[in-house]
């Protein structure tokens, strides 16, 4: 299915396994280097910074090329010509992508990332505007196209888009075709996303799916978040009711208590599973989902002013982290608070966001007229 060289992909997988074994302390850095040397992966894969730059420039070139082709068409062109042009472009992009992969071994180079998005986008928009389909059929077609591109070129984000498109298609089919559809759609999605999480957990330890590890991880993260969204009380009783144009009391989801439990229990369960089974994805998702859980609570209950709550929560988080770090000092039970990988530029970024936060909460200066960094009350206009 994949266009990339399978032998090189296998070598890349060996590198990933070696890196994981090295982090776990099972092999030394020298042994890891020996593995990488013995199984070279001759892909053109630049580092993340260059990949980002190449992605931007390739995007610019491709969108300009599409723009130029539209400009040379007669001004009285009909819609079908544009659709066909987009499909032709999609085919040209496939040819370029296949050539780049075979001739230059591009893999996650930024250029191939951009091409993959344009392949899916041109073919998708071209086909959808050529055939006037229903919303669910449109979503289904997008799901199929993005899935095929994701499988062929191993693109994790397109795999996520495919899952979301299929979910939209399922939503419309389920709610429109079944009389009890609206009342039970939340439960159906809960089951589907839980099943996807379960399947991805299984597949991630399967040798046969080793080339698609990143796709599976992204799908797992998306499903974990989607499961939470479907089980969130606020989403079901406020947002969905508003989408359906119905007041809260008439919201079709009857088991409110279940959604209250899911709103608060899901992040805790994810975090607990992450800690017990040492699954970083579960742990990080669980911690992040504590934010919407708090926001849901805040939407319904206002016991204290917001600034007090934010301050106390911040203090609790800080103190909790302090004791956790002290607890993990001796690398207990295989957990450590030590840094495994250096992160360049993170502290600068954190300081800039913090400076913006302080500026945002500083009252305007009587003379200079605006909040600013540094608490001095000055802005760029000062």
């Amino acid at each position: 299915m994949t266009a990339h060289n399978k032998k090189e992909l296998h070598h890349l997988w060996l590198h990933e396994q070696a890196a994981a074994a090295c982090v776990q302390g099972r092999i030394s850095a020298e042994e890891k280097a020996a593995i990488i040397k013995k199984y070279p992966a001759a892909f053109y894969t630049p580092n993340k910074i260059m990949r980002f730059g190449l992605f931007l420039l390739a995007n610019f070139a491709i969108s300009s090329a599409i723009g130029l082709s539209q400009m040379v068409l007669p001004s009285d062109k009909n819609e079908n010509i544009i659709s066909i042009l987009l499909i032709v472009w999609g085919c040209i992009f496939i040819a370029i992508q296949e050539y780049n992969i075979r001739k230059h071994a591009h893999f996650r180079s930024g250029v191939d990332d951009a091409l993959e998005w344009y392949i899916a986008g041109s073919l998708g928009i071209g086909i959808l505007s050529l055939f006037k389909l229903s919303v669910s059929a449109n979503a289904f077609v997008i799901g199929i196209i993005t899935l095929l591109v994701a499988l062929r070129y191993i693109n994790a984000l397109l795999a996520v888009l495919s899952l979301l498109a299929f979910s939209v298609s399922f939503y419309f089919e389920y709610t429109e075709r079944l009389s009890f559809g609206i009342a039970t759609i939340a439960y159906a999605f809960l089951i589907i996303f839980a099943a996807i999480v379960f399947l991805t957990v299984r597949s991630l330890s399967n040798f046969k799916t080793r080339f698609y590890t990143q796709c599976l991880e992204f799908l797992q993260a998306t499903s974990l978040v989607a499961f939470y969204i479907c089980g969130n009380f606020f989403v079901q009783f406020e947002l969905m009711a508003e989408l359906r144009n119905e007041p809260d009391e008439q919201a079709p989801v009857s088991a409110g208590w279940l959604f209250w439990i899911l709103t608060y229990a899901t992040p805790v369960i994810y975090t607990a599973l992450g800690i017990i089974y040492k699954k970083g994805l579960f742990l990080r998702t669980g911690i992040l989902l504590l934010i919407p859980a708090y926001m849901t609570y805040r939407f319904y209950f206002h016991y204290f002013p917001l600034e007090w709550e934010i301050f106390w929560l911040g203090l609790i988080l800080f103190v909790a982290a302090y004791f956790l770090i002290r607890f993990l000092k001796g690398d207990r039970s295989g957990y450590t608070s030590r840094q495994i990988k250096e992160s360049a530029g993170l502290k600068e970024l954190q300081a800039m966001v913090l400076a913006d936060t302080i500026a945002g909460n500083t009252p305007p200066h009587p003379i200079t007229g605006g909040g600013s960094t540094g608490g001095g009350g000055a802005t760029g206009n000062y």
Partner: protein
Amino acid sequence: MIQKEFIGQLQEDNTLSPEAIDRLRSPDHKDFFSVYWELEFILYGGVMMICSGLGTLVYKNIDTIGHIAVLAFIAVLTVSGHIYCYKHNAPFSWKKTRSSNIIFDYVLMLSAACMLIFIGYLQYQYNVFGERYGLATFIPMVILFISAYFFDHIGVLSLAIINLATWAGIAVTPQKILQEGLWNEDRLIFTAVVLGLFLLAVGFLVKKKEFKAHFEFTYKNFGTHLLFIALLSGLIIYEKFYLIWFLPLAAFTYYMYRQSIREHSFYFMLILTLYGYGGASYVLIHSLSKIPGILPVMEYLTTIYSIASALMLVRFLIKMNKKLKKQ
């Protein structure tokens, strides 16, 4: 997760010694799981929430007794945080010193942020610096620089540089730059040029003299962005004298190119490419548009130029990536 097929292949190919294979297979081996990033996230979230909460609390309680209580609390946080860091700090050295743990980093960041809030409100409410508003940013800036060097903290150094820019009259945080775009005032552009050059010079000096040589990246990063944005702003704002601005832009791009090659920096190679491309494209399109009778085909020429130049830059970056990797 280490898969058995991986171990099987290494064994079959004799890639690792039998002892290493045993280590890979051993069920007794304790696999380490680092929660460093999760703790970083929680600590940083905590600092942000405390600062947001405190900032709003003081603001809402101005002119009440609660206001003074909150201010006193911020002062206590600032002082106690610095005392904690002083007690847990590694002995001072002009070389890089490792902080004892991540708590230390964030206690210092929180204390620095609290100090900024405290001094800011002292000036706002009690006008302690009178009409000398610059002092309200100058004093925290000096404290932040001393703190950054004494405690060896890149985050606090970044706060100090941001404060230095604020003192000089320009906002350098990403949010402000994105909101306001390029600078359109003479004073802002010239200040940014001077400040950018100053930061680059400081970065050069700290590395050469080994005064915390690892701070060089932070100075250089701020300096490079400031100078590039200022030169691009000048190029666009001073339309009639654009060549006067383009020459230093080209020279600086070339200088950064040499530096990136020497230091094997992918990051600076990318940003010089993007800023340099922006400047060169502006000059080219601007010059083309002056040719009489060209306007009807200008749209086509610009689009063709965009395609050709972007493809050339893609090739350039791929080549540079290979070159930097090889070195």
